[in-house]
């Protein structure tokens, strides 16, 4: 009886400890957790993607915290939205010309993974643009998620 007990119980205890230690070990967050508007820059009237010579982007009223600051070779700008409000404004300075761009959107929570927790996804409703640098904006995909796909096209 003792022989049987040790023979079967010991491996099981080892397996249990192994599995428990694996399941209790916190895993690192590997996934993307930021939902960003992916905005591609096009030459006005064409389908040619072209980075502005210089790009500066920051939130309205947040000119000390720049998302892009005189950045070069940015063909796709990644723009964060404010999940605490439904409207968000940005200053866009393309090749030295300043525009103001405002997005309206709705927000909802999304579980990325057990390790990463929650993020906010958005649905883009509309935009307004003032200034001379940006000619047209086309919304290609109104779902703003962590997936790397084009959301809007900016023609300048």
């Amino acid at each position, binding site marked *: *009886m003792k022989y*049987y*007990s040790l023979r*079967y*119980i010991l491996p*099981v205890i080892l*397996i*249990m400890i192994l*599995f*428990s230690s694996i*399941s*209790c070990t*916190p895993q690192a967050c590997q996934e993307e*957790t*930021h939902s960003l508007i992916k905005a591609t820059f096009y030459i006005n009237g064409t389908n040619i993607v072209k980075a502005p010579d210089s790009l500066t982007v920051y*939130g309205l009223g947040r000119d000390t*915290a720049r*998302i892009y600051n005189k950045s070069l070779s940015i063909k796709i700008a990644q723009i*964060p*939205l*404010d*999940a*605490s409000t439904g409207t*968000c404004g940005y200053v866009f300075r393309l090749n030295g010309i300043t525009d103001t761009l405002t997005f309206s959107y709705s927000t*909802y*929570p*999304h*579980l990325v*993974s*057990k390790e990463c*927790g*929650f*993020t*906010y*996804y958005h649905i883009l409703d509309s935009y307004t643009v003032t200034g001379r640098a940006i000619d047209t904006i086309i919304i290609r995909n109104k779902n703003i998620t962590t997936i790397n796909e084009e959301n809007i096209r900016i023609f300048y």
Partner: protein
Amino acid sequence: MRRISAYFINLLIVAWTFSANAQDSIIVMPMKIRIGADVYGPVSYFINKNTLSIEGYFSIDIDTQKAVVAETGYLDFRYSQYNYNYQTKGTFIRLGVDFNLIHPEKAMGKYYAGIGLRYGLSIFRSDVPFFEQSNYWGSVTGSIPPSTHVAHFIEASPGIRTEIFRNFSMGWVIRLRILIYSGTGKDNKAVSIPGYGNGVKSFNPGINYYLIWSIPYKSQKVK
């Protein structure tokens, strides 16, 4: 996982060998009703007080190599990390069949090395009391109120069981589960589904270790 799979393949080969070497003699094999409980969940609870999993097992032999199985259980799961808290409570039931790959002459109702197939149904209530997300605009906190969900899954469960005392068995089962329907939608998936595991993943492995009491209810002749 690869090593576990390799181990199982070896076991199945051994079981097949047992089966192939069986001789053509008539023996009488006891058919049994089995009632058991998982000890892995309660043992894990002593290591991790945030997860209480209780699970029971019931089966009836329908012939010398097959048994219909019902497993039911309860999960109380709490998870917390720097950017969110999550909790879920619920019950589940798994129904299916166990196929013993050991020849009845060798198994004699005492030994099992085989595979089970199950359909699982889980009813649970979950909520997110707190979560936080930070970006360029600062930190935003939120919560998701409690809601009830029903999930469906299937599983293959290879395992081993042996009788260590008269009518008293011990054995373990590896669970290989596939989620059919989470019941939660694609945005607020369950961090843990009772009886299944991580609801974000469409495939979930697991393990149970059972103590089982067997009750012979009839005998069957085996060639």
